[in-house]
C-alpha cells in the first residue's frame, strides 16, 4: 500500500525556475567570495558577462568553447541514459585527438579536404569509442564498475599520450612536446570565413564548422534517444534493468554500444580543438573538458536542449573568466574554477536544495486558488 504522494513541482517550474534559482545561489556565494578577497562582485560579474557575450570576438570564443562542451555533454548524457556514469570523457577525448592526428599526419599531403575531413571525424570517433570499449566490456561482462575503470583509463590515456607525443608524434627537431602543424586541407573551416562567403562579416575567432556538427549531433541525439528502437532499449536498460531483461533487451549489448557512442562523442570534441583552433596536437590539449562534460550533462538533465544551454553557460564562463582574469589579476584561473565548482555543486549535487521550498510554495498557491 502506498501513502499519498507528496505533491511535486510542475514540470515547467522544474525545468526553468529551479535551475535559475540554483544558478543565482551559486553566483551569490561566488559574489561573497569575491567580496572577501577585496573585489567588487558586481563589477566582476559585469566584466565576466561583457567578456563572454558583450562583443563579437567574445561571443565567438564563447561559442568555440561551447562546441566542445556540447560534444562531451552529449557523451555523458548517452551513458547516463543507459544508467552508466562515464567519467572517462577526458581520456576518450584525448584518444579521439590521437585518431584525428594519425589521420591528418598520414594523409594531409595526399588527400583533399572533402575526403580528409570525414576521415578525421571517423578517426576521432573510432579512437574515442575504442577507448570506451574496454571499460564498457569489463562492466558488461565482468561487472567491473564503470566509474572506477573510466577514471583509471583517464590516467592511462594521459601517460600513453605523453609517451606517444614526446617519442613518436613530436615534430622532428622540436623542443616542445607537440606535433607538426597540420596541413591546411585538414583545417576545419572557420565560421568567420564561411560567413564571409555569404557576405556576413564576423570577427575571426577559433569558432569553426565543428559548431554546426555539434548542433547536428544534438538533433540526432534527440531523435535516436527518444524516437528510435535503440534509444528505447537504451533508456529501458538505464531506467529499469529488470524490465529490460523481461522485455528481451540484451542489457550487456546496450551497455557496450552506449559506451562506444559516448566515447565517440567525446572523441569528436577533439576535432573542435585540433582542427578548428590549434591545428596541431599538444600534450594535455583536452584540459579537463571531459569533466566539464559531466557538469554540462548534469545541468542539462541529459536532454539536448538543456545540454546546449548549459554548454553555452560553461562556454561563457570559460571565456568571460579568462577576460576577467586579464582585467583583475586577483581573479585567477582558480577563481573561475571555483565559480564552475559552485555552479556544479548547486545545480548538480544540490539540485533539489530548493525543491521542497518551491513545492510547498506552489502547493499553497494552488490551494488558495
Amino acid at each position, binding site marked *: 500500500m502506498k501513502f499519498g504522494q507528496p505533491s511535486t513541482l510542475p514540470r515547467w517550474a522544474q525545468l526553468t525556475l529551479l535551475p535559475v534559482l540554483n544558478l543565482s545561489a551559486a553566483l551569490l556565494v561566488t559574489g561573497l567570495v569575491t567580496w572577501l578577497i577585496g573585489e567588487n562582485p558586481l563589477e566582476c560579474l559585469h566584466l565576466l558577462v561583457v567578456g563572454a557575450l558583450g562583443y563579437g570576438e567574445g561571443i565567438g570564443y564563447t561559442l568555440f568553447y561551447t562546441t566542445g562542451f556540447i560534444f562531451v555533454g552529449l557523451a555523458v548524457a548517452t551513458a547516463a541514459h543507459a544508467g552508466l556514469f562515464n567519467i572517462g570523457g577526458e581520456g576518450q577525448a584525448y584518444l579521439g585527438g590521437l585518431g584525428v592526428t594519425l589521420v591528418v599526419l598520414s594523409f594531409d599531403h595526399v588527400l583533399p579536404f572533402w575526403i580528409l575531413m570525414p576521415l578525421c571525424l571517423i578517426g576521432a570517433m573510432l579512437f574515442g569509442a575504442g577507448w570506451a570499449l574496454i571499460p564498457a566490456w569489463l562492466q558488461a561482462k565482468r561487472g567491473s564498475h564503470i566509474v572506477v575503470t573510466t577514471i583509471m583509463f583517464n590516467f592511462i590515456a594521459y601517460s600513453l599520450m605523453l609517451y606517444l607525443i614526446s617519442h613518436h608524434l613530436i615534430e622532428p627537431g622540436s623542443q616542445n612536446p607537440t606535433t607538426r602543424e597540420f596541413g591546411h586541407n585538414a583545417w576545419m573551416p572557420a565560421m568567420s570565413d564561411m560567413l564571409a562567403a555569404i557576405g556576413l562579416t564576423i570577427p575571426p575567432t577559433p569558432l569553426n564548422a565543428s559548431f554546426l556538427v555539434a548542433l547536428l549531433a544534438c538533433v540526432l541525439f534527440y531523435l535516436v534517444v527518444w524516437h528510435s528502437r535503440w534509444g528505447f532499449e537504451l533508456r529501458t536498460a538505464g531506467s529499469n534493468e529488470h524490465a529490460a531483461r523481461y*522485455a528481451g533487451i540484451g542489457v550487456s549489448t546496450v551497455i557496450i554500444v552506449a559506451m562506444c557512442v559516448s566515447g565517440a562523442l567525446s572523441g569528436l570534441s577533439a576535432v573542435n580543438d585540433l582542427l578548428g583552433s590549434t591545428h596541431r596536437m599538444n600534450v594535455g590539449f583536452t584540459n579537463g573538458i571531459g569533466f566539464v562534460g559531466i557538469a554540462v550533462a548534469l545541468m542539462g538533465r541529459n536532454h539536448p536542449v538543456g545540454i546546449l544551454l548549459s554548454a553555452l553557460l560553461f562556454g561563457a564562463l570559460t571565456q568571460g573568466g579568462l577576460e576577467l582574469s586579464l582585467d583583475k589579476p586577483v581573479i585567477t584561473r582558480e577563481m573561475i574554477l571555483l565559480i564552475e565548482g559552485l555552479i556544479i555543486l548547486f545545480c548538480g549535487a544540490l539540485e533539489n536544495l530548493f525543491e521542497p521550498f518551491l513545492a510547498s510554495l506552489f502547493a499553497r498557491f494552488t490551494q488558495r486558488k
Partner: protein
Amino acid sequence: MTDFAIELIGISKSFGAVKANRDVEMRIAKGSIHGVIGENGAGKSTLMSILYGYYQADSGQIRVNGKDARISNSQEAIRLGIGMVHQHFMLVDTFTVLENIILGAEGGFVLKKGLSSARDHLLKLNTEYGLDVDPDAVVGTLGVGLQQRVEILKALFRGAEVLILDEPTAVLTPQEADHLFRILRTLREQGKTVILITHKLREVIDITDAVTVMRAGTVVGNVRTSDVDREKLADLMVGRKVNLKVDKADREPGEVVLDVKNLGLVDHRGVKLLQDIGFSLRAGEIVGIAGVAGNGQSELMQVLAGMLEPTSGEVEYKGQSITHLKSREPKAKALRRLGIAHVPEDRSREGLVKAFPMFENAILGYQDDPRLMRGTMYNRRALIARTRTLIEQFDIRPGDPMLRAGLLSGGNQQKVVLAREIFANPDLLLVGQPTRGVDIGAIEFIHKRLVELRDAGKAILLVSVELEEIMSLSDRILVMACGQITGEVAGNAATTTELGLLMGGGNKQ
C-alpha cells in the same frame, strides 16, 4: 457503555492536493479484534501511521483510553501502549530473538543485565500468549510465521495494549495464518486490543468483532462483524455491487501447448531453486500454481519466459523444444515471437518502467514490432493509437497515453501490463500474481478477462499466493514447496486444507 481503547475523531490528513484521510471516525472497543478494510489507497495505512505517530493529522483528535493524546512519534505511541507489526518485518537477521527484542530498549550501557532481565520477561510473555518462540534462535534461520511472532513479542515486550497488524497474512500459509489467529484470540482473551488491517474479507469475517470499512479516504461503514457477510463488505468497500464468484463453464481442454519435464534450476551457489518440475498445460486450460511466496514459483515463471536458463530438464512448446535456444537475440524476445506472453509477478520491477509514459510501456517487450515503425524511427502516432486501444479495452484510468506509468494506481498498472500482453494474442500466457495490490473492482475485471482468454482456447499458467484466486480460476492446481511440485489437485475439488498441507511441503504424491 463500552470502554474504548482507541478513539479517532474527525481525523483528516492531506498530502499536497491528495486527501488521504477525510474526517475519519473510528472507535475501537477494549479487548476486541477490530478489522480495518479497504481497497488500495483507501487510506488505511495513512490512518494507522497517524495512530502510530509517523504522521500528524491535519485536524482531528486521538483518544487513548478515553484521554486525549498527542502522538508525534512512534516512541510516544509505544509509551501509550500502542504497538505495530509491520508488513515488512523490522528485524536484524543476524541477531537472536532476544537481541532483536531488546533492540532500542537495552536498558543501560551494560548489555548483559538487560538481556537477563529481558529473558525472564520474554519467557513469561511467550507462555502467556502461546507464542512458542525460542529466545536464542537466530532470527534469520526462522520461518516467516515465526519471525512475525517475534515482531508481536517485540510489541508486547514494550508493553503494548493495542496491537496494530498490517496485512499480517500476506506472507503466511493457511496453517500459519490459523496459528496467528489463535494467537490473536488469546491476546483478546487476555484483554489486549488488536487492530487488523487487511484486504482479505474472509479474515475479517473469521476473526474480527467489528469492522471499519474505508473507501477513498473516508469511513463508509463501522459495523459489527456479526451483522455483515462477505458480499456486503465487498459492496461497501467498492461502493457498488461486486461479483466475487468467477463464472466459469467447464471446458474440454485441447492440444498440449506446454510440456515441462524434469526441469531443474541450480543457482551459482549451488542452491537448488527448482527440482524435477514436470507438468503439461493444454490449450483452453488454466493451470494454477499455488504455494507460499518464495518456493520457486517466480523462478519457474522466469525460466518459462526465457529470463533464466534452466540447468536441467526439458521444456517443449507446441512440440518444439525451447529448453535452450541457439539464437543471438535474448531468449525472452525469441519466446515472445513464438507466442509466449508473460505478465511478471512483480509488475513495478519487471513489467513496467515507471519513469516512462504509458505509450512506451505499452510496447515494452514488443519494441521490435514493425507496425510501430516508420523507417528506422518509431511512428509515435502508431504508438499512441495502440495505447489508446489498450486503454479502451481494459478501461485503464486515467486514459492518458502520455501519463507516466508510475503515477497510475496499482490496479491500473496491472491493467497496462495485462492489456499489453493480451494484445499480442499469445497462445501461452504466463501470469504471475495478477491481482496483487489490485482493488476489488479491478480483480473482478482481470479474472473475467483471464477466463475469456481460456475460453478462446489459450493456455494460461497462473501463479498466485492468493489461494482463493487460484481455486476460483484454475482447472487444475499444482502446489509448489521448496522448488518442487508437491501435488496436483483438480480445480473444482480443491480445499484450502488440502492445498495448505501441500504448500507446507506435505506428503508428496
